[in-house]
C-alpha cells in the first residue's frame, strides 16, 4: 500500500485473482453510452459490470459495498496521451509509477507514446511495455512508432506492433517531415483500422522557439513558436488523411487555427478526431510570467483567443478528447534557465480536477460531455472495450467528488516527477476512487 500525506492511497493488487463482488451505492451514475444519468447503484462481479440498477439483487445485498452518495460514478477514464518514459528514462517515470499516477488521477487506462529510449518501434518493445503493465493499477495501450526510431524515414512494422498490442501509431514529439512517408503511413495503416496520432509541428518554423510567438515572447526576448508551425502540419495531415481515406487523430491541439482546420475537415467528412490538454484549457502564454519553466511545453501555451476557440471546439465537438500529454522530467531538466529547460508538464493527477473546475463547473461541458471526452471517445478511438457501464464489459470505474476545493501540491503525486504547471492552483473536485477490473486500486481516504 502506498499512501500520500493527503490520504491518497494505491493498493497493490494481484490481478490474477478475480475481484470480489462490489456494490457501488447511491452515486450519480453517468454513462452516456447507455444514456444513463441518475442516482442509482452499480454492481460489479467477476471483474465485469454486472448491472446498473435501482434495485440491488438479493445475492448482492450482503456483499461489500461503497457508499457513493454525493459522488459521480463514471466509466473509468482513459488518458490517451501520456509519456511513461520506460524504457530508458526510468529516472523520470516508470510504467509502475506512471500507472499509479494514472490511477490516482482516475484513469483506468492510458495510451503511452513511443518516444522512449529505445523507441517503441517493433513488436518486442511493445511486448515489453505490455508485460510490465500486467500488475499495474491502470491498463496500458501502447502507441507504436510510425517510423523506425522515430526518424521519419522508414515505416515501423505496424502489423507486428498491433499484434503485440499497440492500439495506434505516432511519432509523437515530432512530425514525420516527409509528406510522402506520411502518405504511405496513412495508406499502410488502413487495413489495421488504427488511428495515426499526429504531433503537428513544422520544425523549420518552430526551431529555436521556447514559447508561443507573440507579445509575451517579444517582451521576454524569447524566440517564439508560431501558431503556423502547428497549423501547417495539421492542414497537411488532414489533407493526407482525406486523400488516402486514412484515419487521423490530431494530438494536443493548441491553436485557434487548428480548431478551424479540424472543424472544416470534419464537415468534409475526413476521418479525423482531435484532442487538447488541460493546460490549453486553463492557461495562456501570460502564465509563463517571468520565465517559469513549469509553463514550458510543446506545443506552447497560446493566447487567450486560442484558448477561447479551443473551448468552443470542445463544446461543438470539433475536439473529441481531453488528454494530459503527461510528460515527466527530473528537476535538473526544469530548474535551469528557461531556454535550457525541457518541454513538457505532467498532468495525470490534475487532469480531472482542471477539467471539472474550468469546464464542468462553469457549465461549458455537461457532465456527460466530460465523460465522453475523457472516457467514451478515447476508448472508441483506440478500439477497446471501455468507456461504458454496459453489463459484461470490464469493471473499470472512476468515482469522483466534484465539489471539494483543494490546492495542488506536487508532494502528494504518485508520479515520479513534479513538473506540473498547476502547482499552487486551487481546483475543485477530486478523484476519490478508481476501480480496475473490479478491484479498488486507488482510494482517497481522509
Amino acid at each position, binding site marked *: 500500500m502506498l499512501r500520500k500525506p493527503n490520504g491518497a492511497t494505491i493498493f497493490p493488487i494481484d490481478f490474477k485473482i478475480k475481484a470480489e463482488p462490489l456494490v457501488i451505492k447511491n452515486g450519480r451514475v453517468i454513462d452516456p453510452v447507455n444514456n444513463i444519468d441518475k442516482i442509482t447503484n452499480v454492481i460489479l462481479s467477476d471483474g465485469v459490470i454486472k448491472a446498473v440498477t435501482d434495485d440491488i439483487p438479493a445475492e448482492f445485498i450482503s456483499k461489500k459495498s461503497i457508499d457513493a452518495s454525493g459522488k459521480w460514478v463514471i466509466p473509468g477514464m482513459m488518458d490517451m496521451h501520456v509519456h511513461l518514459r520506460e524504457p530508458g528514462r526510468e529516472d523520470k517515470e516508470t510504467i509502475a509509477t506512471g500507472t499509479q499516477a494514472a490511477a490516482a488521477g482516475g484513469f483506468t487506462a492510458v495510451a503511452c507514446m513511443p518516444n522512449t529510449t529505445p523507441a517503441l518501434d517493433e513488436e518486442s518493445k511493445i511486448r515489453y511495455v505490455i508485460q510490465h503493465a500486467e500488475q499495474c493499477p491502470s491498463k496500458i495501450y501502447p502507441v507504436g512508432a510510425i517510423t523506425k526510431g522515430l526518424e521519419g524515414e522508414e515505416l515501423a512494422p505496424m502489423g507486428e506492433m498491433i499484434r503485440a498490442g499497440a492500439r495506434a501509431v505516432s511519432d509523437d514529439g515530432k512530425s514525420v517531415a516527409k509528406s510522402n512517408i506520411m502518405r504511405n503511413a496513412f495508406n499502410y495503416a488502413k487495413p489495421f483500422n488504427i488511428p495515426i496520432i499526429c504531433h503537428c509541428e513544422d520544425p523549420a518554423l518552430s526551431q529555436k522557439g521556447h514559447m508561443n510567438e507573440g507579445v509575451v515572447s517579444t517582451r521576454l526576448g524569447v524566440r517564439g513558436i508560431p501558431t503556423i508551425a502547428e497549423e501547417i502540419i495539421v492542414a497537411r495531415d488532414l489533407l493526407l488523411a482525406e486523400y488516402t481515406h486514412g484515419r487521423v487523430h490530431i494530438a494536443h491541439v493548441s491553436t485557434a487555427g487548428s480548431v478551424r482546420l479540424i472543424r472544416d475537415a470534419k464537415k468534409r467528412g475526413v476521418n479525423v478526431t482531435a484532442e487538447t490538454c488541460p493546460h490549453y484549457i486553463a492557461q495562456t502564454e501570460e502564465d509563463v510570467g517571468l520565465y517559469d519553466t513549469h509553463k514550458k511545453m510543446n506545443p506552447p501555451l497560446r493566447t487567450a483567443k486560442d484558448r477561447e476557440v479551443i473551448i468552443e471546439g470542445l463544446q461543438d465537438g470539433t475536439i473529441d478528447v481531453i488528454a494530459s500529454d503527461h510528460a515527466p522530467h527530473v528537476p535538473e531538466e526544469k530548474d*535551469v534557465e528557461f531556454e535550457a529547460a525541457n518541454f513538457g508538464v505532467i498532468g495525470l493527477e490534475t487532469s480531472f480536477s482542471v477539467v471539472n473546475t474550468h469546464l464542468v463547473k462553469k457549465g461549458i461541458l455537461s457532465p456527460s460531455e466530460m465523460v465522453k471526452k475523457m472516457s467514451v471517445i478515447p476508448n472508441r478511438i483506440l478500439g477497446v472495450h471501455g468507456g461504458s457501464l454496459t453489463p459484461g464489459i470490464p469493471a473499470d470505474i472512476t468515482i469522483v467528488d466534484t465539489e471539494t476545493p483543494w490546492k495542488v501540491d506536487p508532494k502528494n503525486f504518485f508520479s515520479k516527477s513534479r513538473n506540473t504547471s498547476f502547482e499552487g492552483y486551487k481546483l475543485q473536485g477530486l478523484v476519490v476512487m478508481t476501480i480496475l477490473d473490479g478491484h479498488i486500486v486507488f482510494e482517497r481516504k481522509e
Partner: protein
Amino acid sequence: MGLSSRHLLGLEGVSKEDIELILNTADSFHEVLDREIKVVPTLRGKTIVNLFYENSTRTRISFELAEKRLSASPLNFSSSSSSVNKGESLRDTIQNIEAMKIDMVVVRHGAAGVPHFLTQCTDAVIINAGDGLHEHPTQALLDIMTIRRKLGRLEGLKVAIIGDIFHSRVARSNAWGMSTLGMNVVLCGPPTLLPQPMDSIGVPVTFNLDEALEGADVVMFLRLQLERQASGAFPTIREYRERWGMDTEKLNKLSKNVLIMHPGPINRGIELSSDVADGPKSVILEQVTNGVAVRMAVLYLLGGGENA
C-alpha cells in the same frame, strides 16, 4: 535615496525616478572620469563577479573599468575559462561562486531570463549585462545619458532605432526606458527582422526608413549580424545598406542637430558609412565614455557604497 529594486534586470517596469537617479549619479561619476586620479573608494572591499557567457569586449571592459574605478575587486569569468564546457548547471556555477563570498554579479548570457533565474539561485545583487534577445539595460542607460548630455533634455524627443529590431536587446531596453521618460521611440527595420506581431514591444514600428527618420532628434543604428543573410532575413548586404543604412546623403536631409548613435561594434559601410560614423553628428565614442559612468552609477547604487 536608493533604487527601488536591489537588482538591475532590465528597464521594463523601472520607474522614471529610478532611471533619473541613475542618470544623475552617472553625471557625477562622469566628472570623476575627467579627474587625473579616476578612482573613488566607494566600493572598496566589494567583490564583483563578471559572469560572461557570451563574447563581449566593450561591455566587459566597461564594467571592469567601472568596478576598478569604484575600488571594487572584479573577478572575471567567461565561458571559455569556466566549467560550462564540463556541463555544470548555471545554478551550481553561481552557488559555487557565491560560496566564495562575493557581493555582486554582472551577467551576460545568450539565453533570455538568465538574470531573473540567478536571482532565484543566489542572494548576490544581479546586474544584467545582456540576456539573449531580452534586455541590455546599462546600454540603454548610457544611450539615454548621452542624449541628455548632448541635447539637455529627454521628454518629447523623437528617437528612431533602425535595424535588426527582433534580435536586439538594445532596442527593447531603449524602447522601454525611453518611453518611461516620455521620449517618442519609433522602431524601423526590414519586416523580416521585426517582432511578430510588429508592435509587440509597445512602441510604433515601421519598415519605412523615411517615416522613421522624419523629425527624429536621435537616430540609433543597430549592428547587423551578417549571418542573418543566410537565414533568409535579407537578400544582400548591398540591398540592406541602401534601404536601412545611413550615409552622408541621407544624413544631410535630417535635422542639423540630429545625433547619430550606435551601440557598437559597427559594421562600417553597412549600418553607417565611415564618414557618418566618424562625422560631427556621431556621438558613438561619447556613448562608450558614458558607459563607464553609467555602470559606475549602477554598481554604486546597487552595491550600497558610500557617497562618491
